[in-house]
């Protein structure tokens, strides 16, 4: 091999390096987002709401966030944690996404958080709500950030609210899994500290379709019922409760009357109260514009699943703008994201030092009325009280809050159950 040909090879190699560098420079303008949602199976409708929410924001901003062009790749998790992990690895290793967004079930969130640590890739949990991901397990997941809510976050205010309404005894009935334990646990904690009594806790299995036996079991001396059905039970439970002749007020977890299912519900849910960080009936200019645009685009009212992902896009937009439109690397980006404060459709939102949102929690009552100039009276989650800027630790300090274990089936203990 002559010196000349060596030199030529050297030049070609140099050119190749330059081109690849140039390509990399160009790629920095592109922000690749891997979006995980169960687009097939029983949660397909929720997955659609999630994707629509994010894409609406992208559409409004010409497919750009903070100046970077977005490559939006959706993968189907099928609602299975192992599949979520496989798809996340695909997005990270093959599509080389800068961040993962989404997941729906708590089990998906728990499965994806370690992937983010292992692969040093940002994971923005827009829906999975398990308390511990931003509480006791937070140190394990430095690349994890939540933009939705933690399960017990809306429960603390509504527990206090229920007590202030004068309810003394409440019977709780919730789906038998971690989300149910955490929602009921938070409610019980503040309700009992204020002087109320949870006199019963019933845990129907997660796929319960017939609530008859559980409804018949509800204690008659309760002033109100706290309920958290999931899946198909969300529709079924209120129907069966009404059919049983129930006259007691019903308090529900935020997801029990969410807009993803509210339009399909009957008048029996009118008067039911629930708490969440969002309601489509929120009368702010920001939300009214969001609801109208979303409804015009997708033909239905946005649910909290839509709003949460819309707001996630908005927060990434703000952080990318801070970064000058180029990807600064996962941890520097996370730093910018944590510092972001935006006015979302749900209201002002910022992140605490464990990367969970501090946000308003709304106590909402289902009412049938006309809103935002729509002609027909419909069911809306009308906001009756706002708890501004609620932290996941409610009124306690972080240290004080961590003295208790995570809410579970047995914690807080049911002191007043017979």
């Amino acid at each position, binding site marked *: 091999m002559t010196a000349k040909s060596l030199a030529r090879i050297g030049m070609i190699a140099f050119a190749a390096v330059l081109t690849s560098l140039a390509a990399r420079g160009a790629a920095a303008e592109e922000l690749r987002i891997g979006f995980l949602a169960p*687009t*097939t199976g029983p949660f397909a409708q929720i997955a659609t709401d999630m994707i629509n929410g994010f894409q609406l924001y992208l559409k409004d901003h010409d497919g750009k966030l903070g100046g970077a062009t977005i490559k939006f790749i959706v*993968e*189907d998790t*099928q*609602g*299975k*944690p*192992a*599949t979520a*992990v*496989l*798809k996340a*690895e*695909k997005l990270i*290793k*093959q599509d080389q996404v800068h961040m993962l967004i989404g997941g729906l079930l*708590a*089990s998906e969130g*728990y*499965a994806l*958080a*370690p*992937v983010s640590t*292992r692969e040093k890739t940002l994971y923005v949990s827009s829906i999975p709500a*398990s308390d511990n991901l931003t509480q006791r397990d937070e140190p394990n997941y430095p690349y994890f950030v939540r933009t939705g809510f933690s399960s017990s976050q809306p429960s603390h205010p509504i527990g206090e609210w229920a007590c202030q309404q004068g309810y003394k005894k409440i019977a709780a009935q919730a789906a038998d*899994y*971690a989300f149910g334990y955490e929602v009921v646990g938070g409610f019980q904690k503040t309700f009992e500290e204020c002087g109320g009594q949870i006199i019963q806790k019933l845990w129907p299995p*997660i796929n319960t379709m017939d609530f008859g036996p559980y409804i018949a079991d509800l204690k008659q001396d309760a002033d109100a019922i706290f309920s958290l059905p999931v899946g198909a039970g969300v529709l079924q439970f209120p129907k069966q409760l009404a059919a049983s002749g129930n006259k007691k007020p019903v308090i529900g977890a935020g997801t029990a009357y969410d807009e993803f299912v509210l339009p399909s519900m009957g008048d029996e849910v009118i008067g039911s109260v629930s708490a969440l960080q969002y309601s489509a009936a929120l009368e702010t200019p920001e939300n009214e514009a969001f609801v109208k645009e979303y409804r015009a685009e997708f033909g239905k009212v946005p649910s909290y699943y839509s709003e949460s992902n819309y707001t996630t896009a908005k927060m990434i937009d703000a952080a990318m703008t801070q970064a000058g439109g180029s990807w600064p690397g996962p941890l520097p980006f996370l730093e910018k994201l944590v510092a972001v404060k935006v006015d979302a459709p749900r209201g002002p939102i910022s992140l605490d030092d464990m990367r969970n949102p501090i946000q308003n929690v709304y106590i909402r009552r289902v009412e049938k009325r006309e809103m935002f100039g729509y002609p027909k009276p419909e069911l809306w989650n009308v906001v009756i009280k706002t708890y501004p800027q609620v932290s996941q630790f409610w009124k306690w300090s972080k240290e004080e809050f961590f003295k208790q274990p995570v809410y*579970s*089936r047995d914690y807080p203990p049911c002191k007043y159950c017979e």
Partner: protein
Amino acid sequence: MRTGVSRRRKLWAVVALLIAVAAITPHSTPFLVLLITRILILAILAMSVDLLLGFTGLSSMGQAAYLGLGAYLTAILATRCQFGLGWDFLLVILFGILLGVATAALFGLLALRAGGVYFLMITLALSQCVWGLAYRWNSLTGGDNGINLPDRPVLGMIRLGNDAAYFYLVLGFFLVSLVSLYVLVQSPFGHSLVGIREREVRMRILGYNTWLHKYIAFIIAGGFGGLAGVLWAELSGQVSPEELTLTTSVDALLMVVLGGPGTLMGGVFGAAIVLFLREYLSTLVPWWQYVLGGIYVLAIYYLPDGLLGLLRRSPDAAVAAAEPVPSRGVGAAVGRHGTALNPKRRVSE
């Protein structure tokens, strides 16, 4: 009955295929490495189902239980005892197999009291019990949230956290499983299992303890299920009750039926087809479920012997035309060689 393609040629084809997989996989895309590793693990599970369904004629609907037990054992040892993070991982594999064997030894006592649909129902119920345990024993299993494992073990210089390294480890265990199961079904014991599948009464009359044969086959299948579970837990780095659901058991059965029961390699091809369609096609198109469903329907209509039945069928076609051969469908597995369903033979018994 002579098989269509000679046994030696089939062996060479399998060897060539496996060498190709071993050589090409690490150079494919990162996603494919993970997917093929997953296929190999579920292929071990499918082969264990095939030992029962294809060779012994027992349709077990509970194989997910052993997968789950192996997986939870790995996760619990790794998180609670920091056991299985280095060379002791090989011990975890051994424990996983033993747990599968022990559980199958217990479950077998209950399930093998019955046959046919009743056997299917009992195995289903037992595996649901294991699922319930995983789902409700919160303090040990983390309930619905599952357990996250620490990083994959490091074996001396080899970091299994590297997907290619882990792929080779899984491939190794897959080969060991394939070869040992092949030796097993070719052994006199394996032949008696086929005899039981064909006509249990006759085997009993001949003096075989058919219950014991089935029991041993059931236990061996459980052991391979446990092995698959250990490998599965380390692959995805987490376990959850989702892995133990009925769907996993049904999947394993479908893989065998699709590929061809009674062939061992059929389950492997079945696992490859199902997972490619489900996990790979779903990254490309949103309507992957229709393709999967369509293939199931077509396979049941036109390939009652599964994909590998094609190899066996074509040279037989002439014979079949000359002399009617009883159905060789899965449901009629008992009648495969024309004994049970052939009235003439029955008269001569």
